[in-house]
């Protein structure tokens, strides 16, 4: 299969640039992939990782720059075209057809035919035999006639890899393949990757799990803010240096925390929220979290470390399968967000487009939505009252909106985010969970939001604050829960530095 010698350049990208309505996602990025190597692409939110992968795999073309495969320029117009050229991708969601058999998924679109003159028919025995042989190369020995949906995710990924092999792929892109796998399945996958690599395959490995990346990669390309920071051999880039390259600044070793008077009422017998062993298989390992009124607890961790999962478990958006939650000392069993809201919890979701704003409703209606939901159907807030409440939060949060009745989709990202925050503040919660409240907001707005968070804590709220910007987390938190690779690795006091947080993350178990 190795028609290229190990080490020769298979896929090369020069000067890739891609922008989306004003945001430059990739800026002049070079990338080199060699035969017989596992190459990891690392970067945080907004680094341009997913854009790079999409350009390489033909999802959309770059605005500028060129791609070369085996030295020849290519311009794939679709993922199918890229596959045709020899670049196969195995996605996180394993994009195969669950209702077809394993063998059929491998060979869909390229069936062996049995045809005497005129009688074209799919040769099922040969199809199954070929599939079995292909899977044997991956040391997988299963019944190829079984439904794909009856196989575990790990096996489904193997099938996707087998399909890539069957189309004579020269480049294999693995996009976050390990998110749903357990430890033994991960090791099995790595075994396959190493074997393919030794056979001469060029493998592009995208992951956010640091130790996995270190276990199996040979080379690392780090992206930051749409630009390439550098390409390194794995051994030349220890974890601390990697984090520094991804996060980008010289991490301040000084304590940079705004002092503010702790407002925790001393007479509180019980913490506002106490979660012990809260977790869900595949999402988050059992974790302890405690929130007290008047304090801001930050959640620090890299992308994919489980921060959002923790938030969703607390707000009952995901069902937990272990642990218990106590609110003000009383054990509760929350199964739906409606119950959480009734217990005075509130959550600003991570992706405001998907779970936050109701695009075509007006700003006014969006702001009062959660409050109205709590009041019920009959106690309707008249538009006049809605406007009054809306105006209050528009003012206090500094939302720039010309017309309260305009659809919220017309607002800028930052103002939308503030509106979502305002919606939850309007319900007068006791516990506020904020998942990336400052994402996609300009600097001035970020400061306003951060100040608002501090004010809220001072007023007696218990706040859980998640952000990818570690300096924000460090600046505003009274305590920091540190997560890594879907589990809690420790807790640090508020007056800590970014450097120390990252050290804790890098240290691992």
């Amino acid at each position: 299969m190795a028609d290229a010698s190990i080490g020769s350049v298979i896929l090369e990208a020069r000067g890739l640039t891609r922008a989306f309505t004003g945001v430059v996602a990739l800026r002049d990025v070079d990338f080199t992939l060699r035969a017989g190597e596992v190459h990891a692409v690392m970067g945080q939110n907004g680094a341009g990782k997913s854009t790079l992968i999409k350009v390489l795999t033909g999802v959309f073309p770059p605005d500028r720059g060129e791609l070369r495969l085996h030295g020849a320029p290519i311009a794939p117009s679709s993922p199918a075209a890229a596959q045709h050229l020899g670049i196969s991708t195995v996605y996180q969601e394993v994009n195969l057809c669950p209702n077809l058999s394993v063998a059929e998924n491998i060979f869909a679109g390229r069936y062996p035919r049995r045809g005497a003159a005129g009688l074209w028919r799919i040769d099922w025995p040969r199809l199954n035999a070929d599939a079995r042989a292909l899977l044997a190369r991956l040391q997988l020995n299963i019944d190829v006639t079984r439904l794909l949906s009856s196989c575990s995710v790990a096996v489904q990924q193997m099938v996707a890899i087998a399909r890539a092999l069957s189309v004579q792929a020269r480049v294999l892109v693995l996009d976050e393949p390990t998110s749903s796998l357990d430890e033994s399945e991960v090791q099995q996958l790595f075994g396959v990757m190493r074997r393919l690599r030794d056979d001469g395959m060029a493998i592009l490995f995208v992951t956010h799990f640091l130790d996995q990346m270190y276990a199996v990669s040979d080379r690392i390309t780090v992206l930051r803010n749409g630009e390439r920071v550098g390409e390194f051999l794995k051994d030349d880039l220890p974890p601390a240096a990697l984090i520094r390259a991804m996060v980008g600044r010289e991490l301040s070793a000084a304590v940079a925390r705004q002092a503010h008077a702790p407002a925790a009422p001393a007479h509180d017998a019980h913490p506002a929220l106490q979660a012990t062993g809260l977790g869900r298989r595949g999402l988050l390992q059992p974790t302890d979290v405690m929130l007290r009124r008047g304090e801001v607890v930050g959640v620090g961790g890299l992308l994919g470390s489980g921060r959002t999962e923790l938030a969703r478990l607390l707000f009952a958006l995901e069902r937990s399968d272990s642990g218990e939650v106590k609110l003000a000392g009383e054990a509760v069993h929350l199964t739906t967000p409606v119950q959480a809201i009734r217990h005075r919890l509130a959550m600003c979701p991570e992706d405001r487009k998907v779970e936050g704003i109701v695009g075509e409703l007006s700003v006014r209606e969006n702001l009062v939505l959660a409050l109205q939901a709590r009041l019920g159907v009959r106690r309707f807030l008249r538009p006049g009252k809605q406007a009054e409440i809306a105006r209050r939060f528009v003012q206090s949060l500094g939302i720039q909106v010309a017309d309260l009745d305009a659809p919220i989709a017309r607002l800028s990202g930052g103002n939308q985010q503030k509106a979502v925050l305002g919606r939850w503040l309007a319900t007068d919660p006791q516990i506020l969970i904020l998942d990336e409240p400052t994402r996609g907001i300009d600097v001035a707005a970020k400061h306003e939001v951060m100040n608002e968070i501090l004010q809220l804590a001072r007023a007696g709220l218990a706040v859980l604050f998640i952000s990818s910007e570690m300096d924000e987390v460090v600046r505003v938190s009274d305590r920091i829960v540190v997560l890594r690779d879907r589990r809690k690795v420790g807790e640090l006091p508020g007056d800590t530095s970014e450097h120390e947080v990252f050290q804790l993350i890098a240290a691992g178990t």
Partner: protein
Amino acid sequence: MRPPRSLRSLPPEGAHAADRQSGIRAWPWLSRLAEHRLFWPTCTLVLLLALNATFNAGFWQLQWRDGHLYGSLIDILNRAAPLAVVALGMTLVIATRGIDISVGAVVAIAGATAALLIGGTLVLKGGQQTYVSRTPMAVAIVAALAVAALCGLWNGLLVARVGMQPIIATLILMVAGRGIAQLITNGQIITVYYAPYFTIGNGFLLGLPFAVFIAAAVWVVLHLLMTRTALGLFIQAIGINPAAARLAGLPERLITVCVYVFCGFAAGVAGLIVSSNVKSADGNNAGLLLELDAILAVTLGGTLLTGGRFSLAGSVLGALIIQTLTSTIYSIGVPPEINLVVKAAVVFVVMLLQSAEFRASVRAWVQRRPLPGAPVR
């Protein structure tokens, strides 16, 4: 529920610029009017009425005869009433991203229930022969509406609790419903002889057909419910972004069940009007193809099949358009069956206009090429 929006759904910012350049800007009030979501349905209706009037000399004439108004316009209002009621119920279901194709069957069931309970037997009362109903008329009406609401509840539970797709869930009642209606009527057409029952579909109040008042009442009640309670807000939120609605704490399942119950109820009201109008209940033919007309009326009125913002007034306008269409075709002298072809054409045009791909294609044909140097995308 109010922001201006044309029938062709939310245009991107650029489209407004194009409009301005084309000269509509000369009359800013006109462009703002054109953006109003009811603009295009109203234009269509006016156009149809005008068309009708050119072929039918006495179209606009209204006479006062036998104590009530009489004329083609009154006819249209009267015939459109049951369709308008069903369309109103369908609007809410469609707004929550659902659909209910069983309303025709429910119309038949409700009419059959009422006719069965009322019937009308000839008795001698004080020397005069009069018809009395088997059960008090009020009870019969309530029973018919209750049965219709029950059908709606069935649909709602299948969609919200069992999780079936709306079209599949309501298909079941659509198939079985006619059989149930026939069961009630025992396979025959039940004729109603009880005169007071006829006022629903044939009576007049203040000179106008009673059915029109019923439709107006349903509209008003619904409008009040949507604007005086949080229902309107909730239904739209659920239709636009169900995930965000759920996270915000909206009682999504309860509301879904309720809109289907109301849709069934509305179909029941329409069933009473229809059976009262023809003074009988026909399990086979009552409400035939009504669901399709109702969906068409809602779509014509500006509510997208994908859910979200809805317009009750639009649906009423849609029902009027469909009825005027039928009447126009008749007055032109074309055989009424051509109705179907015209409806097909209207459906084609409306759905093409609502398709983003189609609008993109048209825009591509109509607009000039992008300037050189702009990023290729």
